[in-house]
C-alpha cells in the first residue's frame, strides 16, 4: 500500500502544482529566475541523477561522480557549447534538436532519421524511471501495484492528463517549470535527509564514517577511474542532446539572459550528489537487502523513518513523471515537425495552433503507450543500464552537432550514413543484450562481448564508426550549395552577412492574406500582429528593409512551431523574392551588429569598434550623407540629412529613395539617376525649412567593381547662408559702384549748379522786373533742391566718416526723429510705440542716427493707414544692439525687396520721393559698422519690419 498511497499524494501534488502555477498572482520574474531554470533543468533529468546515482558511484566509484559532474559541464564550458547555439538561434527558433540539424543539412530526411532515433532511444530512459520501483513489486501486497505495468500505466495516465490540461505552449511555460522545480526541491530534501540519516544514525558522525571507510577499505575501493572518460563522453553532451533537456532549454529563453545559470546547475548537481557515499556506505554496513539504486528509499524504511521513506517514494514518482511528461511533449513536437507538417495544410479558418496542439497531444500519448509496451518486454531492472543504453543511442546525434558547430564540410549523406552505422552498433551491442537479454548473432564468426558491462566499448566504437563513416561519405559525395552555405552560417565565430533580395510584396494586408492561405486566417493574423509588435513597425511602413525584417521575424516565429524547413517554404510562398542575385544586406548587418556587437571578442570586437567610429564620424558630419545600394535603397542617412529634410534616419534607412516624401524623393531620385556628378546650386522648398539652396554631389561605385557595384554616396550641403552672403556682397559692391558714380556725377553737376545759382542771385539782385525776379527765385529754389540732392549723393558715396562714433542713448535720436516728423502737419497721423528703455545705448553718431530714424519712420508712416501704429523695439545680443521698426502697412512686394536700398529707387509717385532715403540709411549704417535687414510681409501678408544692427558701447 505504500506505493499506492505515495502515488495518490504524487498525483494530487503533480496536478495541483501545475494548476497553481497558472495563477496570475505569481509574477513573471519568478518564472524567469535562473534558480527556477536550474531546478527545472535538473527536474527532468530522471531518476538516474537522484536515486540511480548511488548505483553509479557504487559501480564506478569516483569515476561515476566525475561522470555525473560532467552532465553539468556544458554550462561550465558554455562558450563552447551554449553560446554557439545561441548565435545560430538569432535567425531561426530551433524548437528541437532535429530542427537544428535539418537547418544545417537542409533535408527532411535528416529530421525524420533524428526524430526516429530520439523516439527509440528515449524508450529505455523512460523504462529506467520505473525500474527504480522494482523492489516494491517483489512485495506486491505492500506496494499496492502488482507489477511495473500497473505503475507504468498509472503514471502514464497522469502524465497524459497533465499534457492534455497543461501541454499547450501558453500553459506549459509555467506548469512544466512549476512541477519540475518542485520535483528537484523535494529530491534535494530527500537526498540530503538520507545523507544526514546515514551519517548520524548509521555511523554516529562524520568521523566515524571516515573511520569505517578506512578500516573497511571502501575509501580505496571508490578510487576507480577506468570508466571516467567513457562516462564524461557519454554524459557531457546529454544536456544538449536529450529531448527533455533540450526542450527545457528552449521552453523559455531564461538561460540566454543569465550567466548565473552557468554555475547554478553544476552547483545543484553537487548538492544532489553530496550524500551519495554516506548513503552507499550506510547500505553496505547495515547491510540493506536491496539494489543500490533503491538505497535512498530502503534506508529510511529500514531505520523506521516513515516520513522520509514516503517522501522518497513521492519524489521518485515526481522525478519519473517529470521526465516522462517533458519527453512526451518534446517527442510529440519533434514528430509533428519532422513528419506531419506541410505548407498549405491550414486553409480558411483552420487554426494552426489548435491543429499543432492536438497532434502533439496524440503523438505524446502514442509515445507513452509505446513506453508501456516497452516496459512490458524490457528485461533489465537497472536504472543505470537502461539510462546508459538510451543515452548511447541519443549520442549518435553528436557528430551531427559537431558538424553543425565546427565541421561545415560534413554533408547530409555523410551524417545520415554515420547515423545509420552508429545506430546499428548501438542496437547490436547494447539495446538487444541489455533490454531484451538476447545475444545478438555473431558477425563474421567473431565473438564481441556485448551487454551492460561492455557499454564503454560500444559507446566508443559506435561513435568512432559514426564519425568515420560521416567523414568518408562526405568526402566521397557532393555537398550542395545550400548545405555549404548553411554549414558556414552555423560555424562558431562566423559572422555571416545577411543576403538581400527584393521582395515582390510590400503591404501588410497582402502579406496577411497570403499568409492566411498557408497557415489559416486566425494564425496569420496572430503571427503578423506578434511580428509587427516585436519589430515596432507601423502598419503603413512599406520600406523594403521593414518588409525583409518582417519576413525574417515571421520565419523565426513559424520555425518555432513548424520547423525551419517548413517555415522557410511557407515564407518563400507568402513573401517570395522578386528575383535577381542576392546581395549583401548592409542594413540588416548593421542592425545585427548593433544588437550583438557587445558580445564580440578579439579581432571581431576591434573591427566592430572601428566600424562604430566610422559610423559615428559619418553620422555627425556637418554635411548630409546618404548612401544607396544599387537599387536605390537607403543604407545611411546621417544627422545632417535629418536636419535638412526633417526625416528621421530610423524611418529612412531601408526605404527606397524614390519613396521619400516630396520634394526630396523626386529630386534625389532624379539626381541619383542622372549622369551628373554634382548639382552646384539646387533650390528646394519644403514645409520643414522653407526655401533653401543645396549643393548636391555624388560618387558611384563602378559597375565592374567586385564589391558593392552600383552603390552610390550622395552628399548634400546646405549653401543657403553662403548664397545669402554672396548676394549681400554683390549688393554691397553694386551700391558702392553706384555711390562712386553718384559722387562723380554730383561733383560734375555741383559746379554748373553753383554757377547757375550765382547767376540767379545776381539776376535777383539786379533786376526790377517782377517776372524776371520771380523766375530767378524759382531758379534759386531749384538749384537749392539740386544742391540738396548732390549733397545727399556725396554723403551716400562717402566711404568713411570723419565723425566720431561715441556712446549715445538711442532714445535721444529716436525722440528727435519723432518730433521732426510730427512737425509735418500735412502727413498722416500715426502712433509711434517706442519699447526701448532709456538705458539702451549704442555706439554711433547722434545726428546721423536721427537722420536714419527720420527716413525709416517717414517711410513707415507713409505705408501705414491713418491712425495706425508703428512699433519700435530693441534688444541687446552680446556686443550687438538690434532695433526693430515694424509697421503694419501694405508691405513691400517681393520683387522690390532686393532693390529698395538702391539709390533713386522708389515706389512713390513722381515728386513725392527722391529714392534716396533707404540708400542714406544703408550708407549711414555701414559707416556705423552695422547692417540693415528688411522683412516683408511680417504677418498675414502685411507689414514691414526693418532691423538695424549696431554695436553697443
Amino acid at each position, binding site marked *: 500500500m505504500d506505493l499506492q498511497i505515495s502515488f495518490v499524494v504524487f498525483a494530487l501534488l503533480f496536478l495541483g502544482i501545475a494548476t497553481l502555477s497558472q495563477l496570475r498572482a505569481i509574477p513573471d520574474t519568478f518564472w524567469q529566475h535562473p534558480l527556477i531554470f536550474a531546478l527545472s533543468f535538473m527536474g527532468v533529468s530522471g531518476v538516474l541523477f537522484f536515486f540511480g546515482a548511488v548505483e553509479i558511484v557504487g559501480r564506478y566509484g*569516483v569515476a561515476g*561522480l*566525475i561522470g555525473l*559532474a560532467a552532465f553539468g559541464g556544458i*554550462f*561550465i*564550458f*558554455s*562558450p*563552447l557549447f551554449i*553560446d*554557439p547555439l*545561441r*548565435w545560430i538561434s*538569432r535567425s531561426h527558433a530551433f524548437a528541437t534538436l532535429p530542427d537544428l540539424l535539418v537547418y544545417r543539412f537542409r533535408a527532411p530526411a535528416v529530421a525524420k532519421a533524428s526524430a526516429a532515433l530520439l523516439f527509440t532511444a528515449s524508450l529505455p530512459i523512460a523504462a529506467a524511471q520505473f525500474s527504480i520501483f522494482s523492489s516494491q513489486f517483489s512485495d506486491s501486497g505492500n506496494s499496492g501495484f502488482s507489477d511495473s505495468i500497473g505503475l507504468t500505466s498509472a503514471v502514464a495516465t497522469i502524465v497524459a492528463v497533465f499534457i492534455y490540461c497543461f501541454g499547450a505552449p501558453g500553459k506549459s511555460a509555467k506548469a512544466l517549470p512549476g512541477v519540475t522545480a518542485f520535483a528537484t526541491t523535494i529530491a534535494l530534501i530527500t537526498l540530503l535527509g538520507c545523507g544526514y540519516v546515514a551519517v548520524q544514525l548509521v555511523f554516529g558522525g562524520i568521523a566515524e564514517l*571516515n573511520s569505517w*571507510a578506512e578500516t573497511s577499505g571502501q*575509501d*580505496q575501493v*571508490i*578510487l576507480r*577511474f577506468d570508466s571516467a572518460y567513457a562516462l564524461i563522453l557519454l554524459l557531457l553532451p546529454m544536456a544538449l542532446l536529450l529531448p527533455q533537456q533540450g526542450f527545457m532549454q528552449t521552453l523559455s529563453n531564461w538561460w*540566454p*539572459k543569465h*550567466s*548565473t545559470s*552557468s*554555475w547554478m546547475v*553544476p*552547483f545543484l548537481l*553537487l548538492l544532489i*550528489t*553530496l550524500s551519495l*557515499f554516506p548513503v552507499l556506505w550506510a547500505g553496505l554496513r547495515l547491510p540493506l537487502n536491496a539494489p543500490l539504486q533503491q538505497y535512498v528509499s530502503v534506508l529510511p524504511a529500514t531505520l523506521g523513518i516513515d516520513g522520509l521513506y514516503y517522501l522518497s517514494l513521492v519524489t521518485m514518482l515526481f522525478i519519473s513523471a517529470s521526465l516522462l511528461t517533458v519527453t512526451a511533449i518534446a517527442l510529440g513536437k519533434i514528430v509533428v515537425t519532422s513528419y506531419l507538417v506541410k505548407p498549405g495544410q491550414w486553409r480558411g479558418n483552420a487554426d494552426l495552433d489548435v491543429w499543432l496542439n492536438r497532434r502533439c497531444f496524440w503523438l505524446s500519448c502514442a509515445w507513452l503507450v509505446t513506453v508501456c509496451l516497452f516496459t512490458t518486454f524490457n528485461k533489465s531492472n537497472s536504472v543505470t543500464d537502461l539510462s546508459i543504453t538510451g543515452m548511447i543511442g541519443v549520442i549518435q546525434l553528436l557528430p551531427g552537432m559537431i558538424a553543425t558547430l565546427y565541421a561545415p564540410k560534413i554533408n547530409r549523406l555523410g551524417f545520415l550514413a554515420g547515423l545509420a552505422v552508429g545506430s546499428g552498433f548501438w542496437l547490436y551491442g547494447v539495446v538487444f543484450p541489455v533490454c531484451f537479454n538476447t545475444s545478438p548473432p555473431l558477425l563474421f564468426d567473431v565473438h564481441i562481448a556485448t551487454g551492460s558491462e561492455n557499454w564503454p566499448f560500444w559507446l566508443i566504437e559506435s561513435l568512432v564508426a559514426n564519425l568515420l563513416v560521416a567523414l568518408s561519405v562526405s568526402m566521397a559525395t557532393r555537398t550542395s550549395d545550400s548545405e555549404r552555405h548553411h554549414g558556414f552560417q552555423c560555424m*562558431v*565565430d562566423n559572422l555571416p552577412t545577411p543576403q538581400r533580395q527584393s521582395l515582390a510584396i510590400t503591404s501588410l494586408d497582402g502579406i496577411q492574406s497570403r499568409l492566411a492561405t498557408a497557415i489559416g486566417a486566425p494564425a496569420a493574423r496572430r503571427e503578423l500582429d506578434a511580428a509587427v509588435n516585436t519589430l515596432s513597425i507601423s502598419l503603413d511602413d512599406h520600406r523594403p528593409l521593414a518588409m525583409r525584417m518582417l519576413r525574417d521575424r515571421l520565419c523565426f516565429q513559424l520555425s518555432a512551431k513548424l520547423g525551419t524547413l517548413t517555415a522557410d517554404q511557407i515564407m518563400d510562398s507568402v513573401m517570395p523574392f522578386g528575383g535577381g542575385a542576392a546581395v549583401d544586406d548592409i542594413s540588416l548587418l548593421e542592425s545585427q551588429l548593433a544588437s*550583438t556587437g*557587445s*558580445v*564580440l*571578442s*578579439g579581432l571581431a570586437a576591434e573591427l566592430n569598434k572601428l566600424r562604430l567610429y566610422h559610423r559615428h564620424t559619418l553620422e555627425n558630419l556637418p554635411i548630409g550623407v546618404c548612401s544607396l545600394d544599387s537599387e536605390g535603397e537607403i543604407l545611411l542617412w546621417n544627422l545632417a540629412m535629418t536636419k535638412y529634410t526633417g526625416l528621421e534616419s530610423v524611418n529612412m534607412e531601408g526605404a527606397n529613395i524614390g519613396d521619400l516624401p516630396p520634394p526630396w524623393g523626386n529630386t534625389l531620385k532624379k539626381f541619383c539617376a542622372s549622369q551628373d556628378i554634382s548639382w552646384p546650386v539646387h533650390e528646394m522648398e519644403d514645409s520643414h525649412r522653407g526655401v533653401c539652396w543645396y549643393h548636391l554631389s555624388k560618387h558611384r561605385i563602378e559597375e565592374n567593381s567586385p564589391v558593392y557595384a552600383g552603390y552610390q554616396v550622395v552628399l548634400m550641403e546646405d549653401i543657403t547662408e553662403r548664397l545669402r552672403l554672396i548676394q549681400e556682397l554683390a549688393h554691397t559692391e553694386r551700391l558702392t559702384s553706384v555711390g562712386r558714380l553718384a559722387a562723380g556725377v554730383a561733383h560734375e553737376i555741383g559746379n554748373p549748379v553753383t554757377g547757375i545759382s550765382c547767376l540767379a542771385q545776381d539776376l535777383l539782385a539786379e533786376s526790377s522786373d517782377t517776372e524776371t525776379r520771380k523766375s530767378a527765385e524759382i531758379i534759386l529754389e531749384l538749384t537749392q533742391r539740386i544742391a540738396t540732392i548732390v549733397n545727399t549723393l556725396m554723403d551716400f558715396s562717402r566711404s568713411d566718416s570723419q565723425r566720431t562714433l561715441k556712446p549715445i542713448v538711442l532714445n535721444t535720436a529716436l525722440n528727435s526723429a519723432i518730433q521732426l516728423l510730427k512737425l509735418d502737419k500735412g502727413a498722416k497721423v500715426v502712433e509711434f510705440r517706442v519699447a526701448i528703455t532709456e538705458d539702451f545705448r549704442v555706439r554711433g553718431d547722434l545726428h546721423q542716427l536721427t537722420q536714419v530714424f527720420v527716413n525709416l519712420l517717414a517711410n513707415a508712416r507713409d505705408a501705414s493707414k491713418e491712425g495706425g501704429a508703428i512699433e519700435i523695439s530693441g534688444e541687446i545680443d552680446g556686443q550687438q544692439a538690434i532695433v526693430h521698426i515694424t509697421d503694419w502697412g501694405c508691405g513691400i512686394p517681393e520683387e522690390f525687396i532686393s532693390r529698395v536700398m538702391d539709390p533713386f529707387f522708389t515706389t512713390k509717385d513722381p515728386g513725392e520721393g527722391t529714392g534716396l532715403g533707404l540708400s542714406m540709411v544703408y550708407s549711414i549704417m555701414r559707416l556705423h559698422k552695422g547692417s540693415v535687414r528688411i522683412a516683408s510681409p511680417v504677418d498675414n501678408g502685411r507689414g514691414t519690419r526693418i532691423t538695424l544692427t549696431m554695436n553697443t558701447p
Partner: protein
Amino acid sequence: MLNHRLSAFLVLLACVLLPMAIHWLTSPGINWIRPYILWGLFIIATWLWQRRRRVL
C-alpha cells in the same frame, strides 16, 4: 565567440590540472570528500569567470 582563453584553459586542464587532481585524489587520507572540493573550486572559478560575461 570561441574564447581563446577558454581553449588555453582546457589545454592546461588536460595537461597539468587533471594529472595533479588525480594524484591528489589518490593520495592517502579522507578521499571521498576530495572530488567535491575540486568540483566546488570549479564552480567558484566558473562563477568568477562568467559573472560579468556578456551574453546575447
